[in-house]
């Protein structure tokens, strides 16, 4: 979809602008329809041979006991969880890229994803060595705390006098490397069982998420999205660079702190519950931006929908490509994402 405007010589600029905006709305509608179709299709993937009709009837409360169990206890939490985790990661990527004015920036670049994984490794390996068996709740909690620790470090670095956006990104890369090194050391010292558990955790699996966890992820995502939407014009200004944003009346320091906080919160919560699902934070905002531009009035809903779509689509593929083996969803998002990303880059260069 090419939304670029052509040469305008007529006086009806506003009419043409309205038509241009309408194209963005059409794209958002297209994403929404695609997401609905993919989500319903995703409900049907599995070994029980349910038809689409049976899935829909079950959702409407007219399914058999067996189908109720399959849909409501196994597949629906996976799909709803995937929707919100995708939105959450895409939102994190979008605000970090906008605030730091760098298309390659993401929660991973700032070390937040690896910090979460570091926390999980502590819970699964170090605690186990100390004789403490880590429950999923403890693993998620330690993982989240580690992400928050990383966030405090990044915000602290970001507030050092004279720290520009490049400084923050480089500091994030250093933290990322630091947590990756710590994970390697912990895993090197682990026994085979501990190592297998920890590695399996980091793969990322939507099947782990429970309804109470979905409530936490959805509340975090929706509230964060609301905050970002309220600040959409400030983000539009930030896209033009920090100095320009300052001159337009944006408190750039606050914007940076709020963005890092929200990105860390969303990434921390998602990774704590489903593990690492790479590339979504980078991919979803970039695809959306290239289709409908950076105006956050439209890019925000577009990015949320795109993030959800990427994760649901990837999870569906992960479950169906080599069924009954379920591939790690993170591997699919990264694989699909990298290919699609290269295609877009070459097409639009």
């Amino acid at each position: 979809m090419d939304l670029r405007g052509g040469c305008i010589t007529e006086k009806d600029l506003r009419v043409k602008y309205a038509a241009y905006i309408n194209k963005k709305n059409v794209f958002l509608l297209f994403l929404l329809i695609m997401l609905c179709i993919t989500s319903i299709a995703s409900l049907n993937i599995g070994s029980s041979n349910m038809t689409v009709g049976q899935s829909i009837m079950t959702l409407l409360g007219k399914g058999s006991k067996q189908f109720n169990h399959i849909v409501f206890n196994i597949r629906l939490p996976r799909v709803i969880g995937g929707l919100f985790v995708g939105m959450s990661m895409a939102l994190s990527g979008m605000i970090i890229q906008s605030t730091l004015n760098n298309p390659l920036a993401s929660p991973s670049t700032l070390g937040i994803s690896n910090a979460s994984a570091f926390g999980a490794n502590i819970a699964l390996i170090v605690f186990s060595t100390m004789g403490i068996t880590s429950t999923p709740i403890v693993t998620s909690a330690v993982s989240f705390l580690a992400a928050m620790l990383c966030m405090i470090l990044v915000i602290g670095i970001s507030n050092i006098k004279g720290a520009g956006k490049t400084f923050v990104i480089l500091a994030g890369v250093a933290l990322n490397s630091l947590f990756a090194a710590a994970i390697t050391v912990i895993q090197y010292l682990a026994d085979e069982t501990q190592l297998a558990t920890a590695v399996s955790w980091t793969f990322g699996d939507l099947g782990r998420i429970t309804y109470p966890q979905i409530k936490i992820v959805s509340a975090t995502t929706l509230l964060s999205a609301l905050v970002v939407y309220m600040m959409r014009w400030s983000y539009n200004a930030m896209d033009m660079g920090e100095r320009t944003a300052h001159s337009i009346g944006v408190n750039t320091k606050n914007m940076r702190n709020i963005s890092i906080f929200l990105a860390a919160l969303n990434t921390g919560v998602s990774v704590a519950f489903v593990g690492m699902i790479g590339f979504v934070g980078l991919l979803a905002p970039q695809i959306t931006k290239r289709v409908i531009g950076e105006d956050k009035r439209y890019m925000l809903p577009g990015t949320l929908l795109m993030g959800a779509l990427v994760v649901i689509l990837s999870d569906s593929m992960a479950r169906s490509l080599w069924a009954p083996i379920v591939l790690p969803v993170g591997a699919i998002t990264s694989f699909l994402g990298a290919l699609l990303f290269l295609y877009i880059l070459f097409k639009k260069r």
Partner: protein
Amino acid sequence: MNFLEVRDLTFKYDRCILNHISFDVERGSFISLLGINGAGKTTLIKNLNKLLKPTCGSVFIDGLNIADLKSKALAQKMAYVDQHCEPAKNTVFDTILVGRVPHINADVVEEDYQKTEEIINKLNLQDYALREADTLSGGEFQKVVMARALAQEPKLLLLDEPTSNLDIKNQVEVMKLIKEYCEEKNISVIVSIHDINLALQFSDKFLMMKNGEIYRYGDESIITAKSIKDVYKIDVDVIRHKNRKSIILN
């Protein structure tokens, strides 16, 4: 009371960049900041816009100390165009609309669209109003950046070398657009510029800086072969051509 009053402004990094700068600006005047690289022109502009915090001294606009003004209130009074502006992946229309941010409460309203459209028409940007800003030429983009700043409806426009990357045609076009629009709206302009002839063509006043201090401040009478020799360390002849001062390198 003058529209802009700068009092004893001093700014230090590890060394003193601005040293006790004081000057006044009248409403609607067009002032060129002249001086070699490192003289303190950009630092002065950034201090006026609170991008940098002065070590000591004050800046008053309309009698208000800018240190007491919140970001939005300051942005309603002055707009700043950086030396290196970055285009976002947005149309020209949307880029200029972002200039309305200091006036936006919950969302843009009809007045913001009208203002954007008015500036697009005034600056003759209609031909590429719906093109993406990152596909424009340097000259076109610089006009869009000016339009974005003017959409703020500032009383003072601060420009940091707005013509440094442009060819002669675009340099003149950009300066002419600023001059005409700001004259009509009674907006004061402070522009950091290297081309003295361009400055002489468009400015009412000149502030010559040397080593972080004001060397001279006044109308075109301060532009002499001696003052240029003192500030730039070059020999020039100052001539009058078509009733306008110009300098010629020796």
